[in-house]
């Protein structure tokens, strides 16, 4: 089933069960973990990690972002950090009623301008800071998404079926994508998904993860549910640092991942979050 078909079903379900939705706690209890690892080739050549991520939480919303600095640049990693941190900072200081896709657009343009200013100071080309971006503001009933390039986001309901919210954005050719600083405003895609209460889990990821968990046929449920499972065992809201560390180790060392990523340069970054009901502890 396509995402849109599924999404229509989600909306319909919510309309039918409004009482149930209203009976939920005022704000969702998000639990999340995040990790980034260098691509095997970058590690071997001792090249820096050029992916970055950031997250922040307020009672009424969760912010998450991943970014992939362009491998052809020397400062793509710096661009990725600058962009994700700028967005996080702006998320923290923006009034709740202003959080949405217009705010994301504004913050990205500010970061774009900061990159131009930095390039002027350093007397380098602004494209040297090129980075992709996927950012989301998840409120209780909406997801506001900003996408530039081939980083992407998937969502799942309680049934563990994953769908892409938006496909990675590539040019016609496999080795072409889009970046901040923006060459044109059309390279920035903004989406708002409403009535998302039934979407209980989110995964944000860069292209190194997409190669492992997404094909043209869609999202590999088993792949994302693997990373989600430990979070579903937890009831405490917030960032689970121990899961992030374990995720990092597995992203680096899992034999199936190592086999697939040998000789590949792409860094791998994944943030996974859920507000689903914690599963009861496993019994033997």
């Amino acid at each position, binding site marked *: 089933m396509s995402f849109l078909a599924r999404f229509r079903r989600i909306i319909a379900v919510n309309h039918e069960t409004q009482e149930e939705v209203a009976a939920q706690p005022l704000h969702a209890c998000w639990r999340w973990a995040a990790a980034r690892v260098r691509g095997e080739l970058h590690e071997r050549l001792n090249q820096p990690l050029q992916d970055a991520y950031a997250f922040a939480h307020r009672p009424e919303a969760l912010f998450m972002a991943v970014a992939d600095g362009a491998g052809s640049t020397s400062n793509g990693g710096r661009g990725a950090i600058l962009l994700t941190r700028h967005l996080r900072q702006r998320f923290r200081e923006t009034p709740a009623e202003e959080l949405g896709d217009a705010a994301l657009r504004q913050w990205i343009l500010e970061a774009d301008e900061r990159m131009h200013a930095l390039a002027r100071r350093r007397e380098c080309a602004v494209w040297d800071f090129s980075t992709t971006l996927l950012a989301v503001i998840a409120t209780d009933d909406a997801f506001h998404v900003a996408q530039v390039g081939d980083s992407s986001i998937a969502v799942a309901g309680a049934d563990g079926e994953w769908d892409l919210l938006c496909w990675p954005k590539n040019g016609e050719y496999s080795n072409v994508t889009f970046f901040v600083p923006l060459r044109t405003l059309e390279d920035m895609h903004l989406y708002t998904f409403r009535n998302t209460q039934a979407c209980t889990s989110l995964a944000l990821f860069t292209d190194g993860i997409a190669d492992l968990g997404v094909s043209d046929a869609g999202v590999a449920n088993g792949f994302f549910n693997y990373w989600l499972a430990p979070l579903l065992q937890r009831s405490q809201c917030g960032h689970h640092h121990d899961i992030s560390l374990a995720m990092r180790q597995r992203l680096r060392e*899992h034999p199936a991942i190592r086999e697939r990523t040998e000789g590949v340069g792409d860094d791998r970054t994944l943030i996974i979050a859920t507000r689903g009901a914690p599963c009861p502890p496993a019994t033997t």
Partner: protein
Amino acid sequence: MTDEIYGSDDLDLAENPERRCPAVLLLDVSSSMAGQPIEELNRGLRIFTQSVNDDEIARNRVEVALVPFSTDVEVHDFVIASDFRPPTLEADGVTNMGAAILRGLELLEDRKQRYKQHNIPYYRPWVFLITDGLPTDDIQLAVQRVHEGVQNSKFIFFAIGVEGADMNVLRLISPQRTAKLKGLKFRELFEWLSNSLGEISRSRPGDKLKLPRPDSWMDEIEV
């Protein structure tokens, strides 16, 4: 700690289709190529096949179409490098270069449509014209199509002149990328082509392409 959190469950990975890296070789097999040139061209093709197959990634991503042309324009449609078996070409006839270029670009457009239909990601195609002579047919439309295609980033077009080629005509066809082959160094040319396609076939968005230097086969380059 990692085992406590994730256990040792199997991790399912998505099956991804291989990206495709298409290349069209437009090969002049007119009578002026008879003798050593055609022998060296055939040898170069065999070396290309071997070399691209030695590269584990390239052999599953590079796709090759051959368009040998003389009086007739022959077509060997796209085939994945691991299945590519080079024909033994024979030299005879005149140089219908314009028709060959148009046929090659048609093949390429058809291939792209197939990629799109099957959601197969692909790289920007390369078109390689190798000739030692003057076109004997009208090349005006072919020149126009090459210029449009290059300008719209539809493909990258290389025009390689072998000894005796009219370089002015090649420059007219491909002002950006024209080169003259050193002697009969087809072997070096095809090794370079194989290595270059290998580099492209493993490139990712944002990567800086590091193509091998063409000094071993290139006598002069016109930029």
